């Protein structure tokens, strides 16, 4: 039960990584803290429960990271993926701070995996949580409970009531019942709005019905919209989101990591009409999976089909759903409800265009390309001719939205007039658009959440207790 008579030092809206980092840091600084999580306990943790790692700068190898990943390389990677839609000062501050979060995280119960086999070669740049993001979230909640943070599950922040640039009270729905609570400082860590399909529909129309939301259904952007409606400055394109190619059979929400599909570089990918529409072999998959969500979102019916043969099938991670399988390309097309004659024609055309080239090598850009197609496939092009044939339907899977509240380097939320709000801070997805206006770097969302969560918690506690 929330205490209506009490004025908390710090109220944190949200229950994922950024919220927990803010809440724990504020409590450690001596503040009384109320954390308000809209999900029920079983689904707590926002999108953090689906994450796996955190991208961290380091000048030399440590227990969980190999080699070195220095500030300038990190910044270059960020600059490349965002195409400059970032704030260099905030970004560099985040990058530098990322090297110092480990001991705090470990003290708060987070465990890391010593070294990594298998998946994306991220052992140098990213520290992997033992058991993944839900294990991290569990560890933080245990610590939060131990520290005496009050936690409300099934409780949504409905409105942060602002007056003269400060939050005076917070309206919540506690297990379905409206309540009003008071706090000296407020931290907004309640994520983006990608699970709010009606909001998404304003920009994307009925295509939204064909989008898959990879993460939590609880990121409905209620706090984000509420703040923007009260004169908080916005940053980030509201129409844009980060999307990857997913198995089309994924559940609408919460399918997480397992529905992703890595087959594209080794496949021929066609749209519903049986036409190819983009170079499947443009670059290695870790650098390309993120653009394919958008590419598919722009195809008719927001669907695509990845077709490969038995030479290519063992080269990628299995999807959670079984591949469609057939002895001929035509049969495969029929199984996937595509026009068999058209698919035969596309595959034949592709096979004829494959240039006899170098040795096939799936570990690098091998230069095996097609010639004379629009578009050509520029790497890993091999004739699709060795049955049985395999196919997967693909849809755009949305990870997060870019629209954010604007913040400064103290995690203070900025108003439209450029002034910081009196007692309002933000961390995590709700402000990540300040630094990540476009694109994505694996594990960077958790870095922003952790770094800004810690700053927001520190600043909010300091302000509340002064």
């Amino acid at each position: 039960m929330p205490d209506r008579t009490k004025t908390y030092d710090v109220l944190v809206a949200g229950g994922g990584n950024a919220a927990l980092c803010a809440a724990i840091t504020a409590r450690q600084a001596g503040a009384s803290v109320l954390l308000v999580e809209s999900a029920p306990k079983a689904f707590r943790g926002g999108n953090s429960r689906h994450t796996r790692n955190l991208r961290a700068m380091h000048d030399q190898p440590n227990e969980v990271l190999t080699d070195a990943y220095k500030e300038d390389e990190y910044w270059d990677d960020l600059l490349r993926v965002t195409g400059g839609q970032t704030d260099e000062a905030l970004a560099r501050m985040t990058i530098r701070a990322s090297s110092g979060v480990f001991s705090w995280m470990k003290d708060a119960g987070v465990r890391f995996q010593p070294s990594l086999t298998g998946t994306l070669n991220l052992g140098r740049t990213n520290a992997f949580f033992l058991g993944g993001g839900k294990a991290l979230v569990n560890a933080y909640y245990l610590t939060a409970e131990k520290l005496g943070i009050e936690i409300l599950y099934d409780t949504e922040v409905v409105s942060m009531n602002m007056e003269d640039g400060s939050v005076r009270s917070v309206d919540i729905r506690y297990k379905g019942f409206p309540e009003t609570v008071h706090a000296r400082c407020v931290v907004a860590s309640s994520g983006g709005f990608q699970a709010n399909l009606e909001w998404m529909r304003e920009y994307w129309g009925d295509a939204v019905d064909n989008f898959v939301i990879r993460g939590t259904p609880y990121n409905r952007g209620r706090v984000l919209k509420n703040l923007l409606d009260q004169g908080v400055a916005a940053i980030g394109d509201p129409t844009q989101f980060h999307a990857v190619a997913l198995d089309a059979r994924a559940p609408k929400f919460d399918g997480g990591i397992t529905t992703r599909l890595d087959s594209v570089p080794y496949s021929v990918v066609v749209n519903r009409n049986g036409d190819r529409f983009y170079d499947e072999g443009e670059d290695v998959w870790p650098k390309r999976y993120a653009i394919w969500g958008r590419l598919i979102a722009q195809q008719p019916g927001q669907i695509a089909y990845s077709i490969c043969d038995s030479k290519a099938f063992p080269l990628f991670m299995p999807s959670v759903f079984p591949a469609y399988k057939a002895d001929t390309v035509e049969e495969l097309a029929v199984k996937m409800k595509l026009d068999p004659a058209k698919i035969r024609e596309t595959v034949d055309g592709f096979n004829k265009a494959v240039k006899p080239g170098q040795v096939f090598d799936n570990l690098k850009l091998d230069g095996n390309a097609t010639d004379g197609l629009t578009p050509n496939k520029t790497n890993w092009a091999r004739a699709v001719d060795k049955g049985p044939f395999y196919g997967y339907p693909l849809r755009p899977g949305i990870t997060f939205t870019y629209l954010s509240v604007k913040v400064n380097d103290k995690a203070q939320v900025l108003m439209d007039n450029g002034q910081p709000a009196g007692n309002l801070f933000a961390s995590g997805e709700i402000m990540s658009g300040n630094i990540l206006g476009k694109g994505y770097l694996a594990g960077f969302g958790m870095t922003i959440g952790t770094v800004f969560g810690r700053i927001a918690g520190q600043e909010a506690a300091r302000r509340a207790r002064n």
Partner: protein
Amino acid sequence: MQETDAIINARREMEICNACRYCEGFCAVFPAVELRREFSAGDLSYLANLCHNCKGCYYACQYSPPHEWGINVPKALAEVRAESYVEYAWPKPMAAVFERNGTVVALVAALGIALVLFLSMITNSYFWVAQGVVAESFYNVIPLWAMQVVGIATFGFSLFALGMGARNFWRDAGPQESIGPTAIGIAIWDVLTLKNLGGGGNGCNDNSEAFSMRRRYLHHAMFYGFMLCFAATTTGFIYHSFLGWPAPYAFFSVPVVLGTVGGILMIVGTIGLLAMKFVDDPIPNVRRLLGGDIALLMLLAMIAVTGLVLLAVRATGAMGLAMAIHLGFILAFFLVLPYSKMVHGVYRSAALLRRAIERNMKPLGGE
């Protein structure tokens, strides 16, 4: 293994795990999953017996209930494990004993005590405390030859049956590759240290998200206590048969010290593990297997308790009664050995051996 509902569900879960792989740092099961893309019933039996039931993956899983996929790996694998005990049991008709295992183990224990008591009662006069006669030796109560014949016959049969079970497991769920000495060494180390109850060095999730080494240490106490008791018995046998030193032995003699320390450790381990059963989170557990688990823990605890009682009263008129009860529990243990939870030691060791043999294989998929 048969294609049962448990196998079909475990396959579904392992395929989801294989697409996720977040849990690969917890134990040997997930790296073994990553080596394959298809899971035969034998593979699933291997994975099920490789699982030490630490439950780390259940609490870390983003797809655990109430998620619509309802992934619950500890439970799914426990179901398959239980079926594998039935599948590999030898001789085949005895497999039925696993169905109501708790009842069977308890009944055998009761009958074992009754039988030893009855035979001791009708065959000698030292049995009765009331007669005030103190036997000079255990063998006045039950002749050594009788102990040896019954002990070797029952324990010998049970070891043979366990061996046949191991053979059945290896045929169904063993590797293609041959066994090397390094693999054997690694497997023995994994068995003796229970590395896979370590959750990547953090311990088990006993009944919540919190990690703890409790279960591993309690199992160590029970296991090493049991081994010390076994060593005590073996030492006694050597003293008597080869050195001509008859029992009873002094309090600070090797067999008595080994047995005492072992007995205390067994009590700590079994009672501790029993207590944990009562506070377990029910969701990642299989309720119908609880009976067999509890019966075996109780049996082991009672062997240790009655052994220590026997030591305490051995110079009194109660010795005959105490020894008959102690030997009754041991007889029951020998009889149920291949048809109780004890088989997990054999199949899990075999699964760890297969994992050690496969240790250098590369995960499939990924970049």
